[in-house]
């Protein structure tokens, strides 16, 4: 039984964002978690964050073979921003898999096989108390570039390049972005797309389960950073240097 879920994300190339498709395959086999697609160490380590964050919100990493593919395969992808798109895809694939399994009255997972062979630490059988495969859907997130690094408690941390991601969404005519709340004022600069934000994984799961709408950001008047420079009137003497600053402002 193979179940596939795909979400949309992006990575930075210089200051520009390039789209990345996050494919998650949850299939029968030795439980484990594999990331392919030139993922940097920080992305691979995301397995631990994803697992802990899922447990923090009462889900388990599926007791199956989880394969994450980040496409395009030849582009190196650093950063923790893939944690969130991977997590929602895992949840979706896990739900689809378990519901399909029930229909086919197959065993819900190869729980016997969950032993030493797993490359990442597996939760013990006790965690089975929480049923995996709650009803979730990727439908509410369709067309959104999803970015977010997860904390072990399920909180969503800041990522780099959310403004570039929003610009990418607009350039491609996509629906919009879902970004960490701390970065939302950056993405909200881009008009003509939908901009959503979340600060905890639980908020996103509520959306996927149809219990809540996407959190619309309260875009307070964008906080501007003031530089607090001194005034030219403070300059004493230096007559020769004086005409220049006004001219120099053109030589950008």
């Amino acid at each position, binding site marked *: 039984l193979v179940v596939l879920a795909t979400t949309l994300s992006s990575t930075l190339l*210089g200051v520009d964002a390039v789209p990345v498709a996050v494919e998650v395959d949850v299939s029968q086999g030795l439980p484990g978690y594999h990331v392919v697609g030139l993922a940097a160490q920080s992305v691979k380590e995301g397995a631990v964050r994803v697992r802990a964050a899922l447990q923090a919100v009462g889900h388990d990493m599926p007791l199956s073979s989880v394969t994450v593919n980040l496409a395009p395969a030849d582009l190196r992808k650093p950063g923790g921003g893939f944690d969130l798109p991977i997590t929602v895809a895992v949840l979706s694939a896990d739900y689809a898999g378990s519901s399909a399994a029930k229909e086919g009255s197959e065993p819900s997972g190869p729980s016997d096989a969950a032993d030493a062979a797993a490359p990442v630490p597996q939760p013990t059988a006790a965690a089975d108390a929480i049923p995996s495969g709650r009803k979730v859907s990727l439908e509410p997130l369709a067309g959104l570039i999803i970015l977010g690094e997860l904390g072990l408690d399920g909180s969503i941390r800041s990522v780099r390049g959310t403004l570039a991601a929003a610009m990418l969404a607009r350039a491609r005519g996509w629906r919009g972005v879902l970004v960490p709340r701390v970065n939302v004022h950056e993405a909200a600069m881009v008009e003509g797309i939908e901009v959503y934000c979340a600060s905890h994984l639980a908020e996103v799961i509520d959306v996927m389960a149809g219990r809540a709408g996407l959190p619309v950001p309260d875009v307070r008047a964008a906080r501007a950073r003031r530089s607090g420079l001194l005034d030219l009137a403070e300059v004493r003497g230096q007559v020769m240097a004086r005409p220049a600053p006004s001219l120099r402002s053109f030589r950008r």
Partner: protein
Amino acid sequence: MTHDEILETTKVYSALGQAETGLIEDRPFRSPHHTISTAGLLGGGTMPRPGEISMAHNGVLFLDELPEFARGAIESLRQPLEDRVVTIGRVAGTVKLPASFLLAASANPCPCGWLDSGVRQCTCSGVAIERYRSRMSGPLLDRIDLRIFVRAVALTDLRAAGSSESSAQVRDRVAAARARQLARLAPWGIRTNAEMNTVAQRATCRLDSKAEAVLTSLVKANRTLTARSIDRIIRVARTIADLAGAEHIDDGCLHEAASYRAMDGSQ
């Protein structure tokens, strides 16, 4: 800054994870220490991250004590100064980073700092001065349009109470001139004189006959003027005319523009 400029500059800071505290709405002013590496200045890493010149995008990059910078670092500014982007090649491919900045730099006249000061005798040997100056190459200096020798300030000036022209007054003048440039250069899709290519420059920088004569005499008097210098003198003259609110470049503008370049060879 205009909305587009705020977007461009904030995008750089966003890519560095430094826009969380707010959007960049003031022109950035970056003044890296002179021990900065070439990668720190231009941007670098296997997945290139923006460096100081990109963080100064749409703003000012100030290099204090220019001759103290690593030679490789300052010479690497040549291409971005011309193209207003920096192109970084890596095995995985090339990355273009925005780098439209105004370069301001300061330097001492010699290692001891007293040459031509009129206050104290310089103690540097000729060789030392030569070595110090040669750290800034000709091609780099050629790209610096305004060069000013600044003397030490007398105590009386320093303690003087009178206020000189304020930033706000200068800003008004500059804003008016920028508006003229924007209106004139709109057909070429650029905002300032600095961005003009030769086509735009030929079309917008008409010299009157007296100014043309001044240019000819300048080139005759100084055969070391490169083609780039001449282009740049005309551009600066265009800006001076804009500041004065003039339609055409007259001989006065051209003289002034050339005078800012006059320190050729002597710092």
